[in-house]
């Protein structure tokens, strides 16, 4: 095995790219679950976002328009879930699973004419002299702008959830929807907004896959990324900072093991392939092992709300 063929700067650079779709989708699901809704349709919304973003970016030649379309596509699909679970009080687990199957089917239908096409390139963000720094310039400061948007969103979501009235209201609805209703908070409206936001974020994550990470369209290209995002939210004990950690850890180990495979590691390929899952889950489980209220799930998570005033 030739470890010298692995460049640390390149590993960091590609881990940030590999992690961004997971980070975006997991942040969206974090907000949804903080509002007390369990949407298992992340995978479906991601892949719908992937094809919507890809198609619009190809047709218009503009990646930003593509990302916007991906958000719209993911959000639109999530509204189906919202109407079914919040208005018609359908079971959230079953509806979420159906949403994933529906999204996979819908995307492969929409994507029939787009197989084998190359999308327009997403612009690199020009960070001036920062990009010329040794190591850091290559590893951290030479990415496309979506990477930095996703990091900015992490901070913004952390700030809103923990420091603002809006975040407090959202958490209150997820914690005890009956009490929130008794205090006059609009439980259903808040959850609609949260689900829509989660859908848009999942769509954005999907578009990042099809427009930047891969970049092309193939059927089923999310390949379980939505499920990983869901798992990261749980193991990150519903905290934005740990979602970032979880996503980067998973992306990092994925990139590293691919590099190890290329370098001809003595470990069987199967072990290397499973390592991102095993290591991410282990680390996050150990971190959330201390049982305290701060790491607990939102108390109303997944429970249907019906105002019986």
């Amino acid at each position, binding site marked *: 095995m030739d470890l010298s063929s692995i460049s640390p700067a390149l590993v960091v650079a590609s881990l940030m790219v590999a992690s961004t779709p997971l980070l975006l989708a997991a942040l969206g699901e974090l907000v949804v679950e903080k509002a007390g809704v369990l949407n298992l349709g992340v995978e479906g919304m991601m892949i719908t976002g992937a094809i919507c973003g890809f198609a619009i970016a190809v047709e218009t030649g503009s990646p930003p328009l593509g990302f916007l379309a991906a958000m719209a596509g993911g959000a639109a699909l999530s509204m189906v879930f919202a109407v079914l679970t919040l208005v018609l009080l359908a079971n959230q687990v079953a509806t979420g699973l159906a949403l994933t199957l529906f999204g996979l089917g819908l995307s492969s239908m929409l994507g029939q004419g787009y197989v084998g096409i190359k999308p327009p390139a997403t612009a690199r963000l020009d960070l001036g002299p920062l990009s010329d720094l040794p190591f850091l310039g290559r590893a951290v400061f030479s990415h496309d702008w979506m990477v930095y948007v996703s990091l900015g969103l992490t901070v913004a979501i952390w700030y809103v959830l923990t420091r603002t009235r809006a975040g407090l209201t959202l958490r*209150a609805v997820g914690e005890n929807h009956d*009490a929130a209703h008794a205090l006059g908070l609009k439980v259903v409206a808040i959850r609609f907004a949260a689900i829509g936001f989660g859908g848009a974020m999942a769509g954005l994550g999907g578009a990042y896959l099809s427009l930047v990470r891969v970049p092309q369209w193939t059927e089923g290209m999310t390949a379980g990324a939505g499920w990983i995002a869901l798992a990261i939210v749980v193991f990150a004990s519903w905290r934005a900072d740990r979602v970032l950690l979880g996503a980067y850890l998973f992306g990092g180990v994925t990139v590293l093991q691919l590099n190890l495979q290329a370098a001809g590691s003595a470990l069987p390929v199967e072990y290397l392939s499973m390592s991102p899952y095993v290591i991410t889950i282990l680390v996050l489980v150990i971190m959330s092992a201390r049982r305290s209220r701060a790491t607990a799930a939102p108390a109303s998570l997944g429970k249907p709300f019906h105002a019986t005033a």
Partner: protein
Amino acid sequence: MTDDLLTLDGLTKAYPGVVANRDVSFGIAPGEVHALLGENGAGKSTLVKMIFGLVTPDKGRMTLSGKPHAPNSPEAARAAGVGMVFQHFSLFDALDVAENVSLGMSDPPPRATLAPRIAEVSRAYGLPLEPNRTVGDLSAGERQRVEIVRALLGKPRLLIMDEPTSVLTPQEVELLFGTLRQLRSEGVAILYISHKLEEIRALCDRATILRDGEVVATCRPSQETAGRLAELMVGRKLDAPARAGRALDSLALMVRDLSLPPAHAFGTPLTNVSLRLHEGEVLGIGGVAGNGQDELLAALSGEILAPEATLFLGGRDISRLGPDARRRAGVLTGPEERLGHAAAPDMSLTENALLSVSYDPAMVKRGLIDWSATRAFAESVIARFDVRTPGPDTAARALSGGNLQKYVMGREIVQNPMVLVVNQPTWGVDAAAAAVIRQALLDLAAQGAGVIVISQDLDELMEVSDRFAGLTNGRLSSFRSTSDLSVEEIGLMLGGAHDMAPADPGLPSRKKGATA
């Protein structure tokens, strides 16, 4: 009356199949504590929800200091000067006190100014409270203070209190009454909902009594007897339970030095609990919820196995027997949670009957269920305890709280246990059903069974039990005969006093007390 703060005029609200309020009219004056009395289902909750903007009346008008009062949301009601303290606390366990208060305000100030204001109001009204503590760690009394302070910060002219004392120790009740009297002297009108008659007689200036959604009487509670008020509420005369039982000499159940670690992260450990229950005797165990009641019941029912040689039934060590084996041996239990613990909500009454009698070969033969026998058993419970239900095929969830409670209690009682342990047998049950359940417990003891009643309702314990002990922090006090026990002594036995010191930061946690 024209000088009333709030007047209700002909309020009517109907739900499909039931009229919750029919033509309700009365007035509440400023600086008055006005009681709203009635049984469960009499329409008290619907009425206050209309005043607080959670429900819109079908007909009728409300006037608040001369202006029409028709709030369409709690926010609008708060803006008009109405505050409410809910019966089932509308609090968020995972959030801290300041966040909880802020959520209940229409226009909350930033945390930096809110926290000192919480401290200030809680001091001014004798409600010690710390803004930074997580609500999930607070005792019931402290949680209520959060609700009250939240309501007071909105500077209400009318404060609605929905069954505020049901979870408080006598000392905490006194503290609350002090606060309410202070508010009254400041001109705040208080609408006080309760079915505890003695409290209403001690505190309230006027009372309006609801029955089946209609106002049946208005009176000055201090000039009526509790018995008369109960009659007005129920609509007929209520008999106090008759005590026929006499404790016999032979021991039914003995608990010796039972200590258990807490079953879950927020549980209470049991420490050196000992008791001797005789045949024909009713033991009362009082205390505020969360002091080990659930753990004690679980240890006696077999849901948690006790250490060896701690539980004895007539001399036989049953410590390591599971729930089914204990049922077979004659120890039956009725837990506090009706839905989810005593009964499976979505299963029929017949199926729920089977859950507690499945050890009986008459119902289950060689692993096969005899449904007709089980159904007959369920029907016998329904008939004997006057459970109002369309039939034994009805889902448990569909029954009202009182009816379901009669059913799950009756289910155990008709099995003629040697020992019956019940937790909160009449929690949230109306006066008539509560009387039936208490009488049934006494009758069971009269037939020679030993009965342990765990309850937060001291009046109930005084009524049914021969001997009384308090459970605090998982420790059981020694038993005293109830015939010579005053309410103050009981309060001290419950250790409610540890909560009473004025704002002493960080001290009054029951968790800390447990490790002290």
